């Protein structure tokens, strides 16, 4: 595809052809890979938040009388277990409740006599999500003190924000691709001017524009590939560092921002894409420039 034979390649001097272009592309690839990783991780997180967490509800039994609370909790659990569209029902234990409250109340505030609501985590199927109103009505019929906390209602703005950030990242990637193409155009024009004499001689010997373009597109593509690989290595180091920090936070929400394997494949393909982009842009640029000569 690169097209020039080994002898033809010698028509241009050894060494890098396009001056600082590989380093410009390295910087742009670094930023592109970070933006792409961010966008892909955000997209994955939005998908999972909208999917898994969005199908969760929490039933709270808020009754001051411990007897009423336990009786209604049991009734709610039994009812939920028989409802269509309910995947699982799990009542949080006392230890889990105290673990939830400890960050706010501290150990001293965790009085055994403090009236705490009973919390029941419910996972719905996609069909169950559609009939949540009917499930809620059935629960409140057997447990009048039940409150249904729909996770999707408070996750929706967050998912929207994450999707917006993902789109922003996609926009940044698109702009970076444009900037990379512009850098290649400038590099190709500079290389053409530098090697004008060689090109003139080749033309006078009967060289076609395609033959000349092959020389430049190959070298510029390799230069771009070199820069892109350097930039990607830097970006991967940063992505791994950020991933480790996120893992250390241990938050469920933050922990949902991960990079799936498909995203890694996409990131690793970026230098190849950059090389092919440079190849195509250099070819078009050189051929257009030559078309204005005799």
């Amino acid at each position: 595809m690169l097209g020039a034979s080994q002898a033809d390649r010698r028509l241009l001097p050894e060494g890098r052809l396009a001056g600082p272009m590989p380093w410009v592309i390295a910087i742009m690839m670094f930023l592109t890979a970070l933006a792409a990783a961010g966008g892909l991780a955000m997209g994955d997180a939005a998908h999972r938040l909208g999917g898994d967490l969005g199908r969760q509800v929490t039933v709270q039994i808020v009754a001051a009388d411990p007897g009423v609370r336990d009786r209604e909790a049991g009734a709610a659990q039994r009812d939920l277990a028989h409802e269509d569209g309910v995947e699982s029902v799990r009542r949080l234990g006392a230890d889990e409740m105290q673990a939830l409250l400890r960050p706010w109340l501290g150990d001293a505030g965790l009085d055994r006599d403090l009236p705490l609501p009973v919390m029941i985590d419910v996972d719905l199927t996609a069909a169950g999500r559609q009939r949540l109103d009917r499930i809620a009505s059935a629960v409140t019929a057997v447990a009048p003190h039940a409150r249904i906390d729909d996770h999707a209602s408070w996750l929706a703005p967050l998912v929207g924000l994450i999707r917006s950030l993902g789109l922003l990242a996609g926009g940044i990637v698109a702009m970076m691709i444009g900037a990379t193409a512009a850098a290649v155009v400038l590099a190709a024009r500079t290389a053409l001017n530098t090697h004008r004499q060689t090109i003139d001689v080749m033309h006078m010997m009967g060289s076609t524009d395609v033959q000349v373009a092959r020389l430049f597109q190959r070298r510029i593509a390799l230069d771009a590939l070199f820069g892109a690989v350097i930039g990607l290595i830097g970006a991967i180091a940063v992505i791994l560092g950020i991933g480790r920090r996120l893992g250390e936070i241990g938050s469920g929400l933050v922990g949902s921002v991960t990079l799936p394997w498909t995203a890694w494949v996409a990131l690793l393909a970026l230098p190849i894409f950059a090389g092919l982009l440079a190849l195509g842009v250099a070819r078009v640029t050189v051929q257009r420039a030559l078309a204005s000569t005799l």
Partner: protein
Amino acid sequence: MAGIVQFENVGLRYGTGAETLSDLSFSLAQGSFYFLTGPSGAGKTSLLKMLYLSQRPSRGSIRLFGEDVVQLRRARLPGFRRRIGVVFQDFRLIPHLSAYDNIALPLRIAGVDERDLVTPVREMLAWVGLADRASARPPTLSGGEQQRVAIARAVIGRPEILVADEPTGNVDPDMAARLLHLFDALNTLGTTIIVATHDIHLLSRVASANVMRLDRGQISDPTGALRYPPVGPNEAYA
């Protein structure tokens, strides 16, 4: 003999100035040898540029190999250029390529296989006396050696037309005689040769040569070799 080159009312003007070449009308016979003479600034190089398709005329018609090349689509120019060998006045060797690679360039551009070009390139290097300088790069060669490389590059593809601009300007008389002998031998094989030169001593070195003289943009025909009017359509180059 058919006209391989036909100029009709050709004029050339650079920018908005006066015409460098005016009303050139002549026809060059296929397989002939021509010297193009004239004082500096007469327009010899401009005329040669139009011959090797590096310059389009401002007006008039130029036919090469029987086809009008003034209106020729750009994509078809390489095919014509491969049939024309050029020795540039300033050699125009590619400085980072060896003498061998410079000479091999036209063959590589024409798509000749690497295995098939070794022998002709070696033979040509030997012919111009540079067999032991095959790997030397132009900046390390003398002016005369560079000129010989340029000539070898121009003739290696066995062109139908050879255009040479002052090809013996940097070589000693012996080498000049050898190069002219090479041109003469190519001419015998059917190549039409056009050599621009200041050196009036060269004119007598090739017995069969015709002389074209350019002066102030006008051409004269001291040897009666330039046929005008150009040959008719039924006599066109085949």
